[in-house]
């Protein structure tokens, strides 16, 4: 195997943080592809430019996604990376593994690929980094026969992902792992066979901490919340008071200013709490949500291309999230249907909602307007009225005339 001189990236083996270059070198020891990837990367570092070409369409039979085609402009110089496709494997909910399963993944990958991985990709997949076109079918056969399926790519449902939730977190308001598994299974076809106008991502967080960053990185963000009071254990409050300035750190930082603490008792005006989780996370032994559990559904976040980055918008302020998740699955189908009817190619759902108007979207999916959906009402009086709207206002006025009482 060719030994590349890599002084620039060698420098990245120094220092306390674990080195990806060391990882590449480990793989390069017995793997031609990984070895050429090293040389190829050194070349990028020395010339300050990348040499990968646009992805071509490669994949496995019957699937439209799961593999990102990648070729180098320098295939002659670095034949090991002339083809260097990535394979996305759908990760298990919560990124839990046994060593047995992981080792099996490694074995197959060493056999057919570069021995390089990303644990994990930003969307959540196990990313197997670099293989050749003719190995793809074998890779798929090996993995799928052992229970692993490909993840998403292209204009399809992308691999849903979730926070660790009830597996190890006291704050999960619903079972993020189970929901993610259930949705992934339910929508296998949408995941493997791109028929959407663009990608669609689902991320599930158990509470407002949003440890899977759903509000910013998912077309559909499912964020756990509750309806009910925060229960207070005053004895634990006293314990916290020993090490914490409760007024400075909790009460004064409460966004709704619905708390008070007189040095003895902590009080919460639950009616005004917006369930932001600050107090709970800082006093987890003392404070616990109670009452009904469920989630808030938000729609539309994405990276900046084309219309600027979006955060997801609240659509359904509260929904129960319980197996078999029928309501949620139906909602997703309705969302896709409207999107399908209204999107141009390469338009994410958020972009289409912005184009067509929130009303059209909400009406299509059967959701009522609610002030919880907005930060503030519209400012400019440029609004649409349907004839039915006006008729309804007039009917209300007629009713008011009768009763003598206004309903604004």
């Amino acid at each position, binding site marked *: 195997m060719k030994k590349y001189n890599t002084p620039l990236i060698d420098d990245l083996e120094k220092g306390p943080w674990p080195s990806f270059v060391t990882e590449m070198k480990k793989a390069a020891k017995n793997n031609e592809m990984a070895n050429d990837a090293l040389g190829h990367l050194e070349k990028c570092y020395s010339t300050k430019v990348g040499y990968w070409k646009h992805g071509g369409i490669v994949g496995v039979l019957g699937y439209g996604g799961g593999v990102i085609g990648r070729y180098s402009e320098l295939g002659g110089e670095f034949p090991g990376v002339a083809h260097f496709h990535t394979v996305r494997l759908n990760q298990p909910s919560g990124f839990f593994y046994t060593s047995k399963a992981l080792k099996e993944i490694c074995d197959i990958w060493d056999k057919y690929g570069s021995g390089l991985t990303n644990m994990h990709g930003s969307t959540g997949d196990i990313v197997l980094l670099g293989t050749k076109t003719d190995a793809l079918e074998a890779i798929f056969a090996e993995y799928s026969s052992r229970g692993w399926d490909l993840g998403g790519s292209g204009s399809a449902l992308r691999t849903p992902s979730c926070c660790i939730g009830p597996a190890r977190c006291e704050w999960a308001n619903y079972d993020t792992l189970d929901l993610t598994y259930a949705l992934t299974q339910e929508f296998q076809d949408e995941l493997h066979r791109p028929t959407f106008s663009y990608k669609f991502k689902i991320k599930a967080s158990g509470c407002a901490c949003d440890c899977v960053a759903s509000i910013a990185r998912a077309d559909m963000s499912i964020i756990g919340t509750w309806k009910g009071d925060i229960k207070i254990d005053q004895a634990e409050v006293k314990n916290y008071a020993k090490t914490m300035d409760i007024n400075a750190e909790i009460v004064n930082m409460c966004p709704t200013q619905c708390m008070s603490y007189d040095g003895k008792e902590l009080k919460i005006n639950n009616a005004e709490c917006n369930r932001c989780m600050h107090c709970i996370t800082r006093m987890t032994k003392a404070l616990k949500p109670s009452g009904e559990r469920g989630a808030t559904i938000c729609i539309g976040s994405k990276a900046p291309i084309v219309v600027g980055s979006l955060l997801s918008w*609240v659509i359904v302020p509260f929904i129960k999230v319980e197996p078999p998740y029928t309501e949620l699955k139906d909602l997703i189908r309705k969302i896709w249907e409207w999107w399908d009817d209204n999107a141009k190619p390469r338009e994410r759902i958020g972009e289409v909602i912005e184009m067509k*108007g929130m*009303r059209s979207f909400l009406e299509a999916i059967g959701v009522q307007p609610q002030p*919880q959906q907005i*930060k503030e009402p519209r400012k400019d009086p440029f609004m649409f009225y349907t004839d039915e709207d006006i008729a309804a206002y007039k009917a209300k006025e007629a009713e008011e005339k009768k009763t003598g009482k206004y309903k604004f």
Partner: protein
Amino acid sequence: MALPQRKTDIGPPHYKQFLPPVIQKNYGKWKYHEVLTPGTMVHVAESGDKLWTVRVASPRLLSTETIREQCDIAEKYCDGHLRYTTRNNVEFLVSDEKKLESLKKELKDRGFKMGGIGPHITNVVHTQGWVHCHGACTDASGLVKAMMDELYDYFETKKLPNKVRLAVACCVNMCGAVHCSDIAVVAVHTKVPTIVHEKFKNMCELPTVIGSCPTRAISPDPAQKSVKINAEKCMYCGNCFTVCPPINIKDPERDGVAIVVGGKINSLRTNPKFSKLVIPYISNEPPRWPKVVAAIKHIVEVYAKNAKKHERIGEWIERIGWERFFSLTGIDFTFQSIDDFTFMRDTMRTSATFKW
């Protein structure tokens, strides 16, 4: 009778000639002021001089007869000096304390109303309406009169947490400062305009008409040598109607008003704020628009009861959250309140935190 010689480009008279002597003397050297009653305040100069102001309500639409009456009063108590405010009230400027009470008495006797200084409701910024404008979808003066009759106590006596600035605009051109008022009424058309195609060619410029439409609802109709309007996209702003007479948007049964709240101009405490739509439509009910008036009064009362001292309506709402504003006032939340114009992406909530 021969006309006097016209002059051009002379600009307005220099203001100095109209300033009372006490102002000329203490110009720029005022030290502080005190509000004495909702209708009177006194400004004290560094020199120790004092200037009393008596503020009187005005319908803004004044006959020369009333202006002359105001002049007569000013002559009697203020050496002929008076001014109007930026919200169209009249201010009598008194430099001699002895004249203050008799001025107030005479004003009262003549039926003039004093008030509006401090945390009160003062005059309503408004526009022409049916009195003078072609675009009006309501009458502004009538609405103001109806509102202020009902809110009158807040002008003359009743305190509020802070000033409440009201405005009325008779169309979405919003010649009053509706867009940044605590509570404002903006009249709205609600139907797609009709076009007299035959007249279009002679009376309108095609690019101007097309360019006038904020939502690009207008496209050329070459067959008729006119334009056509995409009803799906038109939100009845009337801008095409403003630039092209053969386009008509007025409709007696459909024209009405909307109510917006929470705006603010000054930068005290919080930044200036736009007013936001809370009631999308109330039918025109001249002469007194009872539902409009009741809605405004209701909002004022809920505010008065719930806000902290010094909080303007918008500041109060931002503290409690718009969802709480809707639940406290019991106002229906409608699709119209959800922005689908420029700021949709920024006005939708992007967090799972809100109140029930």
